[in-house]
């Protein structure tokens, strides 16, 4: 069909122009709102709201039961306060839990609301071009409802299922029922319970035995209507000997009110399967005074169920007013392995409490954590990690490295590493560094004709190189762009 190399070159060339445009632009580029009629349920959460959501999505009984169980459990829980974060109190009754653009499911692509299409174009994902050129199947989620899933047919030939979560509930109920909540139970935490009750939509991906997914799978998110929480739910299942690389990229418009984003991502990898999950996140971070911005409270977890299975998490997080997430892996299968590579940037008044948990249960399991934090402005950036080795787990290996880079003298970087090792055969290493960009380094660059903004970009990208190199190329380019833009105005 399309040669993969040619596609990548074309994609790269397009991005180069984007880079120049974006870097000289500076301001949060995606700050606009689409005036599409959205159908919203009134504010507040109750059992009736949960039933209404389920009814609107035409869900089967078992799905409604799942939601109700989660909702009832949520009512018994209290907001967790152990994170190193300054959080305003959220009134959960002051949130709208469902907003879908008026859209009938059976429309042809040509009939799709032109304003909707325009929104996607502004966000830089012209679906037509993506379909024709990039070979990346895109599942675009717009305010809780998937608008379009492309390449379904191509993937279907290989038996790969890649569709919206809502569709999966209706068309692949057995698969969803089998795996939903097995990695992140609704009992796991406050936000997991909330998500399980009111999740709007997300992606479902299933790779059958022995199949190697030939293209990067990608999802694109957007929060639009005011006071709508985004509650995505993603489930990825990779059967024996399969492979998939999944990209998640998000933007959100400029709003004054804080917006809640409590998502769940579950990944299951069977024998010898490999799942790569990459994220570039630049949700609206709030303005320079710290007003507004997204609250990003996410539970992401992978289960290496099978022998020699492998799950890799790669993330570049530059947005959100508050980021609270720990992509984690349970290493159950013998010989399974997991890697976590992260660059988290905080500027102005942003806060992040993020890291990873690696739970070693099976024998000879391996994990790697490389976390690069960059703090600027008055922000607060914390790494929190857990490496746990179970009593009967033999031959576990872990290497963790958490580095902090401070720009200026009003920001903070903190580390909370937890090592819980119950078996004497385990080898667990932890390294940490803290560094600053010195005025003398910036002046050296200036004296060679490089502006301070560009110098910071060079130095920060050099610092984050190890993580960025792990990302699929298209994402790596956007990530580098993002790093530079998110640190503008942080000279000091």
């Amino acid at each position, binding site marked *: 069909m399309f040669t993969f190399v040619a596609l990548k070159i074309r994609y790269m060339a397009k991005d180069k122009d984007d880079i120049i445009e974006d870097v000289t632009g500076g301001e949060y580029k995606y700050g606009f709102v689409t005036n599409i009629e959205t159908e919203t349920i009134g504010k507040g959460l109750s059992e009736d709201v949960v039933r209404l959501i389920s009814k609107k999505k035409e869900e089967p009984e078992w799905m409604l039961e799942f939601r109700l169980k989660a909702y009832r459990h949520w009512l018994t829980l209290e907001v967790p306060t152990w994170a190193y974060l300054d959080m305003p109190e959220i009134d959960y009754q002051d949130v709208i839990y469902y907003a879908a653009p008026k859209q009938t499911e059976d429309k042809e692509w040509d009939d799709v609301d032109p304003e909707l299409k325009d929104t996607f174009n502004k966000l830089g994902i012209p679906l037509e071009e993506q379909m024709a050129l990039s070979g990346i199947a895109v599942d675009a989620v717009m305010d809780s409802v998937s608008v379009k899933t492309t390449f379904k047919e191509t993937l279907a030939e290989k038996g790969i299922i890649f569709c919206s979560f809502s569709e999966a509930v209706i068309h692949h109920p057995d698969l969803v029922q089998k795996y939903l909540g097995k990695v992140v139970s609704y009992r796991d935490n406050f936000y997991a319970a909330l998500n399980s009750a009111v999740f709007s939509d997300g992606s479902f991906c299933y790779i059958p035995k022995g199949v190697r997914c030939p293209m990067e799978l990608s999802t694109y998110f957007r929060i639009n209507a005011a006071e709508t929480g985004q509650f995505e739910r993603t489930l990825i299942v990779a059967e024996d000997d399969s492979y998939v690389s999944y990209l998640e990229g998000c933007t959100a418009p400029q709003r004054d009110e804080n917006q809640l984003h409590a998502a769940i991502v579950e990944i299951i990898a069977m024998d010898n399967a490999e799942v790569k999950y990459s994220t570039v996140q630049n949700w609206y971070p709030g303005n320079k005074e710290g007003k507004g911005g997204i609250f990003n409270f996410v539970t992401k977890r992978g289960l290496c169920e099978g022998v020699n299975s492998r799950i890799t998490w790669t993330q570049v997080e530059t947005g959100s007013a508050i980021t609270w997430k720990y992509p984690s892996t349970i290493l159950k299968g013998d010989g399974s392995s997991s890697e976590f590579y992260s660059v988290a940037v905080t500027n102005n008044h942003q806060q992040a409490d993020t890291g990873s948990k690696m739970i070693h249960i099976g024998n000879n399991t391996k994990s790697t954590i490389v976390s690069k934090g960059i703090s600027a402005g008055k922000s607060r950036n914390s790494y929190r990690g857990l490496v746990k080795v179970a009593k009967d787990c033999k031959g576990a290996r872990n290497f963790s490295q958490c580095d902090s880079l401070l720009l200026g003298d009003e920001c903070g970087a903190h580390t909370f590493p937890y090592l819980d090792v119950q078996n004497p055969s385990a080898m667990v290493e932890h390294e940490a560094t803290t560094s600053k960009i*010195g*005025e*003398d*380094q910036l*002046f*050296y*660059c*200036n*004296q*060679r*004709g*490089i*502006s*301070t903004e*560009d110098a910071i970009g*060079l*130095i920060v*990208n*050099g*610092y984050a*190189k190890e993580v960025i190199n792990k990302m699929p190329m298209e994402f790596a380019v956007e990530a580098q762009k993002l790093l530079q833009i998110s640190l503008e105005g942080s000279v000091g």
Partner: protein
Amino acid sequence: MLVIKDLHAKIGDKEILKGINLEVKPGEVHAIMGPNGAGKSTLSSVLAGREVFDVTKGEVTFEGKNLLELPAEDRAREGIFMSFQYPVEIPGVSTVNFLKTAVNEHRKYKGIDPLSAGDFLKLMREKQALVQMDAKLMNRSVNEGFSGGEKKKNEIFQMAMLEPKLSILDETDSGLDIDALRIVSNGVNVLKTPETSTIVITHYQRLLDYIVPDVVHVLYDGRIVKTAGKELVAELEEKGYDWIKKEIEGK
């Protein structure tokens, strides 16, 4: 090319430059010597545009432009290059990438198209040969783990790549052994043209044996107190700076 009139500069509350007057014409090599604390490094930092110093009085004109109005990166793009006494390390940024960015910034400023990767590599190899720079250092991070001599050679290599109009060599000889000194000096000499100028800041005669100055100045207590031809160097080496100090106090 460079005209400095009555330049005063301070850092914090301390005044360091107390009225510098200097004129450098195209093709000239000026040496600035003087005891520690005289203000030699301050002068080079102020010319390069380091913001930690405040200019309180005076004018500096470079190629007819008011230099003091320009930020450091523009001064560099106008054609001023400073070889640092203590070149700083920049981990994570490869020398190749760093120089490519610098070279293309200079070109952009002048309205020329940036160099393609291929052309840039060709330029690099050419200049490496010219100043005897070890190619193996190119893929390492800027100055990271470089020996003193390698750092200074890297400064001259960068000078070769950026082709400045005015080079300011701030104590380039400090930390160099005899062989490194010869190689570095050779690099500087090879790059000299009748249109370009050099200011060499140093304590010692030896460097000036290799990079021969047209004019020699002595900087003392924030002012240029003596200007003469290259014979002054030998006289200073013989008599030290006390002789100058006495001469001034005597006046």
